[in-house]
């Protein structure tokens, strides 16, 4: 279980992004964090991974205080993070990156299993460099594959739908559905997409640096549909419905 208590974070020039945010992510659930752009969703995800350091507040993973633990140690403790804008590496192949993620050598059939989950054929990709020759959709799928390869207790996806085409998106939904069915860890997805919201166990709306509303997905979907005020704050409403 991940618990965030009174998390606040401001930009270097002093603009408050997260304001005493409290959130609990239970074990074994698929939790979607949604809300308007600029509301603090990505900041929240980066604070969980340790990429940003909160100004105040506490973070607990399985009741262990991880507030002062750095990115590397959090990763080793079982937190994975899929970047919204994946990073490219000249000279590092897809296979090498996947092996770094898994922390061990990977046989071709294992690589094939993981890459096929994000719609890529291992034979075409393992030897390719994770560089600018990959399209936006390809690099995004590889980014998601790196966290799948880690298979950790908490996986955070920051807007996995951003920058991928419709065909890949459909596959991505299937991947999340599959992860949800045989869930052996917690999945947290930052998303605006209705189809991702629909596969959630729980939904939390982050707006103006706080949790505006949260609860079981079914309940929250109804609220989101009915509460025009809440929907009005979602800048990507068209993406939701």
């Amino acid at each position: 279980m991940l618990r965030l208590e009174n998390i606040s974070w401001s930009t270097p020039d002093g603009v408050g992004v997260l304001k005493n945010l409290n959130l609990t992510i239970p074990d074994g659930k698929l939790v979607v964090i949604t809300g308007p752009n600029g509301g603090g969703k990505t900041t929240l995800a980066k604070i969980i991974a340790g990429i940003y350091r909160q100004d105040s507040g506490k973070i607990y993973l399985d009741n262990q205080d991880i507030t002062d633990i750095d990115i590397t140690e959090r990763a080793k403790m079982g937190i994975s993070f899929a970047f919204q804008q994946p990073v490219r590496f000249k000279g590092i192949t897809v296979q090498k990156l996947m092996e770094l993620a898994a922390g061990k050598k990977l046989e071709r059939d294992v690589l094939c299993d993981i890459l096929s989950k994000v719609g890529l054929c291992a034979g075409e990709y393992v030897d390719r460099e994770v560089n600018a020759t990959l399209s936006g959709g390809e690099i995004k799928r590889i980014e998601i594959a790196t966290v799948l390869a880690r298979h950790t207790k908490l996986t955070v996806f920051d807007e996995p739908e951003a920058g991928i085409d419709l065909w890949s998106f459909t596959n991505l939904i299937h991947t999340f559905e599959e992860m949800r069915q045989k869930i052996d860890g917690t999945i947290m997805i930052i998303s605006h997409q209705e189809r991702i919201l629909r596969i959630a166990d729980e939904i939390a709306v982050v707006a103006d640096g706080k949790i505006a509303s949260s609860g079981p997905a079914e309940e929250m979907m109804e609220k989101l549909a009915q509460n025009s005020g809440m929907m009005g704050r979602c800048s990507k409403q068209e993406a939701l419905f």
Partner: protein
Amino acid sequence: MKEITKDLLKEISEWNGEFKGAYNIREDGACVGRVSSKNIRIESKKDQPGLEIFIAANTKGETVSIPACVTHGDVDDLVYNDFYVGENADVIIVAGCGIHTETGEPARHNGIHRFILGKNSKVKYLEKHIGTGHGTGLRSIDPVTEAELDENAVLEMDTAQIGGVDRTTRNTSAKLGAGAKLLIRERILTEKEQTAKTEFRVELNGKDSGVDLISRSVARDHSHQGYHSVIIGNAPCTGHSECDAIISENGKVDAAPELHARDNDAALIHEAAIGKIAGEQILKLRTLGLTEEEAEATIIDGFLS
């Protein structure tokens, strides 16, 4: 052959007690082993130090290795090696140089290689340079490579200098005939107070000739690297040069790619990028469980691989 030479050979060539195919091993300016094959003849030059290597037309799949090792200080080795590659041959040439010194005296190897590639021939040239030993004497390697490619010949050069060489000046020049292709992939790592200067000059003289020149370098500590490439398109041709450099600590890199189009159908491109390792790259690898130091080493290893 000295033990140091054996150690250097393992590093600079795939030597595991023996070479596959024809070879000549040079140790401190002298030959300590030579074997020719039916199709590849190695002979000593008569007028100057070095070799003449004759690769018969239509030779396929053979390898010739000509490593040079300097095992102590106070050696200034100069060698001229000429390769004559027959028409339609398809071979691998493994060069490479290792310099070892345990004293304060300098050790230098200057290898001047000339390649004459016949029509439709194909050569893969592998060259690895290293410096070893605890001596304070400067280790210098100054290779000069000159290539002439006849119609549809292909020369693929894969060169690496990954550490230990204090001073290097690399000069590579080539003239390409119709349909000939030159592919160069160079990797250089400098550390401490080392300097490396690399110069390329490629003349694309024949129709549909092409060059793809990729240089990747890492300059660490107080080291300094300079890259200068000149591609001259004298015919309908394609040319591409790419110089990518990572700088860390107080490393310095100068990059100056030059293009000269002398034909309306010459298509020439250059790219040069210099910068430190992107912070996001380090962050990504840390989210996979690597420490900052491990992430940096992984990025540099990959970049120079």
